[in-house]
């Protein structure tokens, strides 16, 4: 006799669990979510770091949940999810006191719906800024913007919120390869980041911006091939096409809105309730057992929001898996997406010298800085990080995100907090003691490099700091292997129908009936609001003949 019974049981209460739980409950299935940690939401979390009343996003920071179907389907705004859309967007500052500043080409004009409109004024401003470095690059920006608007954007959204197509059937982005008018040159799909940067741009500034941004948005280094999905994504961001967006109250507000929407429909969640295994009857998933011994019946289905290794090798440890599958699961690539990541609580905002180049500088939610050295960023950067722990002095490519400018919830009145990011090696390259030492020492390195661009970023300005390392991340979550923030590298070979292994890329568990997997270990990769849970739900809709919510809502995907 089970201790509790639900139609649908979700293993793990991460971000995608909170999304799919809404869809399942809304489709009429009584749903229960079981989470190991003390809060649900996984990477959509928040903590008062590095000091009380300063709010940090310790995992996901840049989010566009308003682009996710769940935002609209469940009216998440009503449950407290409130985005603000700053005027500023992307920027990159160089030591010679020049800088790139981008202006949003498609700003959100209606926060309720997330509806965007093309802004010719902003487009022209960005064009002029790029033209200060290269007229040719500015023309390339115009060329990309036209295609982005006409086809790439919609293709990107359809791709993100649709399950992968089988090999040989082009997905919405692959369809662009054969569009002569507004298409995407397929050679970029196979090039690495350095090659794409060189092929698209001639100026060092734009190439550096593109290569640095690859790391932030995909976790890959410039030497990695990224594929059409990441290239389109990256261009939309670095060229400031998409609105910058800030969640009021930080990323955890996304979780709260999803959980509260779920709770309002009668769904139930359980924290500090680690799942030990999935219970099977023959080849059918029928429930779960918790680490405390309680058994939960799943009358219809079980969905795992864990990574593939945990789902297959731990939750289904009693199932005989093919040797080749086990081998592949053990060899999923996790050597990318490691970062030093955390906030410094400050008395005052950085005062960038390059404001003389563009007075708007400093008001960007995502501001990069780094030396004008293409070869360094292309090759030596990764090599120094992997061997020394962090780049040599003066060679850091820092990212600074000063969200407290736009969200008063993030810092006490009159104070500020800025998220800093620099890349890091996989966890196994250094010992626990070495990581802890780096955690203590890195802020000093970061400040020294920051002072090159903004001289007031001295220790006197710092109230507190807590920069997380891959060691911190590994403590956070067993699925974030090697201390990376994504469940599995996000390079080309780990995309769509191959993510994370071809055998489990379609959200169904091979040889186990009524069991699914919805985590970002599958298409469409890691990051808040991406599509794995929505796509997994589409498979469940198909199998259980549930109402097709996207048809009711008149949505293409």
């Amino acid at each position: 006799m089970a201790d509790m019974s639900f139609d649908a049981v979700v293993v793990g209460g991460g971000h995608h669990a909170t999304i799919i739980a809404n869809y399942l409950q809304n489709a009429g299935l009584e749903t229960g979510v079981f989470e190991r940690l003390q809060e649900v939401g996984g990477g959509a979390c928040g903590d008062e770091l590095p000091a009380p009343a300063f709010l940090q996003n310790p995992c996901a920071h840049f989010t566009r949940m308003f682009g996710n179907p769940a935002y609209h389907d469940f009216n998440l705004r009503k449950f407290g999810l409130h985005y603000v859309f700053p005027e500023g967007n992307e920027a990159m500052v160089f030591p010679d006191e020049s800088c790139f500043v981008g202006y949003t080409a498609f700003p959100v004009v209606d926060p309720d719906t997330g509806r965007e409109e093309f802004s010719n004024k902003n487009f022209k401003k960005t064009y002029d800024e790029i033209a200060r470095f290269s007229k040719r690059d500015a023309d390339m920006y115009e060329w990309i913007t036209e295609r982005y608007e006409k086809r790439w954007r919609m293709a990107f959204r359809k791709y993100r919120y649709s399950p992968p197509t089988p090999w040989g059937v082009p997905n919405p982005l692959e369809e662009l390869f054969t569009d002569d008018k507004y298409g995407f040159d397929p050679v970029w799909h196979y090039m690495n980041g350095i090659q794409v940067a060189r092929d698209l741009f001639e100026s060092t500034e734009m190439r550096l911006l593109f290569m640095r941004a690859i790391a932030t948005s995909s976790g890959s280094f410039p030497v990695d091939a990224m594929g059409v999905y990441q290239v389109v994504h990256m261009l939309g961001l670095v060229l400031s096409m998409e609105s910058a967006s800030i969640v009021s109250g930080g990323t955890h507000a996304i979780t709260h809105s999803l959980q509260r929407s779920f709770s309002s429909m009668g769904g139930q969640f359980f924290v500090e309730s680690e799942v030990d295994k999935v219970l099977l009857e023959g080849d059918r998933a029928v429930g779960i057992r918790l680490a405390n011994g309680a058994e939960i019946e799943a009358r219809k289905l079980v969905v795992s929001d864990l990574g593939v290794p945990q789902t297959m090798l731990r939750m289904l440890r009693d199932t005989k898996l093919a040797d080749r599958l086990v081998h592949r699961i053990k060899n999923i690539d996790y050597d990318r997406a490691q970062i030093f990541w955390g906030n410094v609580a400050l008395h005052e905002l950085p005062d960038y010298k390059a404001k003389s180049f563009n007075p708007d500088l400093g008001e960007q939610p995502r501001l990069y800085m780094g030396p004008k050295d293409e070869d360094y960023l292309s090759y030596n950067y990764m090599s120094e990080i992997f061997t020394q722990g962090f780049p040599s002095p003066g060679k850091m490519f820092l990212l600074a995100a000063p969200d407290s400018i736009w969200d008063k919830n993030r810092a006490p009145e009159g104070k500020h907090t800025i998220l800093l990011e620099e890349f890091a090696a996989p966890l196994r390259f250094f010992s626990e003691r070495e990581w802890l030492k780096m955690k203590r020492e890195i802020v000093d390195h970061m400040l020294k490099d920051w002072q090159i661009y903004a001289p007031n970023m001295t220790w006197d300005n710092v109230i507190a700091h807590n920069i997380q390392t891959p060691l911190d991340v590994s403590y956070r979550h067993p699925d974030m292997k090697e201390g990376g923030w994504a469940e599995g590298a996000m390079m080309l070979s780990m995309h769509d129908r191959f993510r994370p292994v071809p055998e489990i890329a379609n959200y169904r568990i091979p040889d186990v009936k009524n069991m699914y997997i919805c985590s970002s270990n599958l298409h469409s990769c890691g990051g808040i609001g991406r599509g794995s849970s929505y796509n997994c739900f589409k498979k469940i809709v198909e199998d259980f003949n549930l109402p097709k919510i996207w048809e009711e809502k008149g949505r293409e995907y």
Partner: protein
Amino acid sequence: MAEYDGIIIGAGPNGLLTASYLAKAGLKILLLERRFEMGGGLCSEHITIPSFIHNTHAIYMPMVDYAPFFQDFKHEMEEISDLKFIHPDPVMTLTLQDHRTLSVYQDAERTARSIARFSEKDARTYVNAAAKFKEYMDVFIAPATYYPPHPAMEAMTKMKSHDVGRDLQALQPMSPRAIVEELFENEHVRTLFLYASCMWGLDYDLEGLGFLVPLYFNRAANYRLVVGGSHHLAHVMSKLLYKNGGMIIGPKPVSKIVIENGRAKGVETEDGYYYEANKFIVSSLNPHQTFLELVGEDHLGSDFATRINDWKWEKTSFFHVHLALTESPQFKAAEKNPDLAKTFIHLFGYDSYQELIDHYDAIRRGELRDSGFNSCYPTLHDPSQAPAGKHTGLISCHAPYNLADGGAEQWYDIRDEIADQCLNKLRTYVPNINEDTIMWRYITTPKDIHNKFVDMREGSYKQGAYLPLQMGYLRPNELCAEYATPIKDLYICGSCTYPGGTILMANGYNAANRIADDYGIQKWWKKPESIARAEELGLL
């Protein structure tokens, strides 16, 4: 008709408590929370290294054995959550530099044996006092905690009707120091019990609140830890709310309580939303916030406004250091007393009675003194609060909000220095807490408390000082002592109401009772037997 019957401002323990009772009574309740997380002081956070849970505000749960909540919702709690408490034994231990220890155990006889090492006389006194204070708790203090206050004259008359009441009245004019010194002769025994009495900010020489001393004496053997962290208790209450159709929305700082025709009708939030209530608004905030900032003086009578403006913040707040540790703390004195490793609340740095007094005097002057503190290692009792084999630690040091040298702003500059000072002292008792074993530390100053919880102004974690004119029927003042306010349909339920602060699970309960009475709401919960008994005895 508005969507909600009642709107509660602030989703801290008292807001959640009022909500839990009223939502189950069938009312649609909305809680609006300013912070990114609900639960108020019931917070547990990953603020050093992920998966290390630190109870960043409330940790020592004082009234688990008496609060009606745990009985009233027993059935639901079993269904939705495995809420568990740990009651470590010994509960409190004072360790001296010479490695002698003095412990308060759950069992008074064991405590007496510990005291006897310092004074046979004090040991006998303790056994008698403990029995007497337990009776005070059962017969009067606990039931009175979950019962609205009586006006002073009425309370006095009622208390005169019974021995326990008369005893407590005799204690009332005495200061904690006078009571402790009257009871005990040994200075270390005095230190431990004066600390226990003043742990929550009661002034050691304040006369007029002596009846709190038996409470704190008794509680010294009764603090508990929430398994998985204090926030788990907030989760339980939030789930009770969701289950009964209620909702929490945040971050939503409220900017205005809308008054129409003398009646509280709805609230506006800083981000431009308006929420209306069919029946009532409840504020769990401090009196300044509720009445001066949200209602506005225009809607207050001048007497009432004066009383609110007179409200006094607390003089003593806390400085905390949270630690993530690679290994379990090894207490030097544990060689002599192995029970030390089982202790819940350690008291370090008070080698003399005078040191404790000097510390408190320094705080009054706004000075920092390299003195004592209490310290706790939750993972020794609940390993689930850190990854396997790892540990958490906490230093809680009394400290002033306003520093004589530099004011409150100065806390930003000296936080690390003061943390180092505390850790250096700690190391003399627990040598293996050092640079090699501290993975990370997280500091909370009184200024941080003020920043983090806007209602705890100047670090006032009880929303206002414990002074004779701010306690009992005068909390926050006689015009809104019974949770209703001079404004129709506006209620208060925070720590600024009777009986006061810390996680008593009382104010919100009492407010729910009052609201249920005022709106003719059928109470699904029963009056606790202890209250019925106290009423029969004429004490309540």
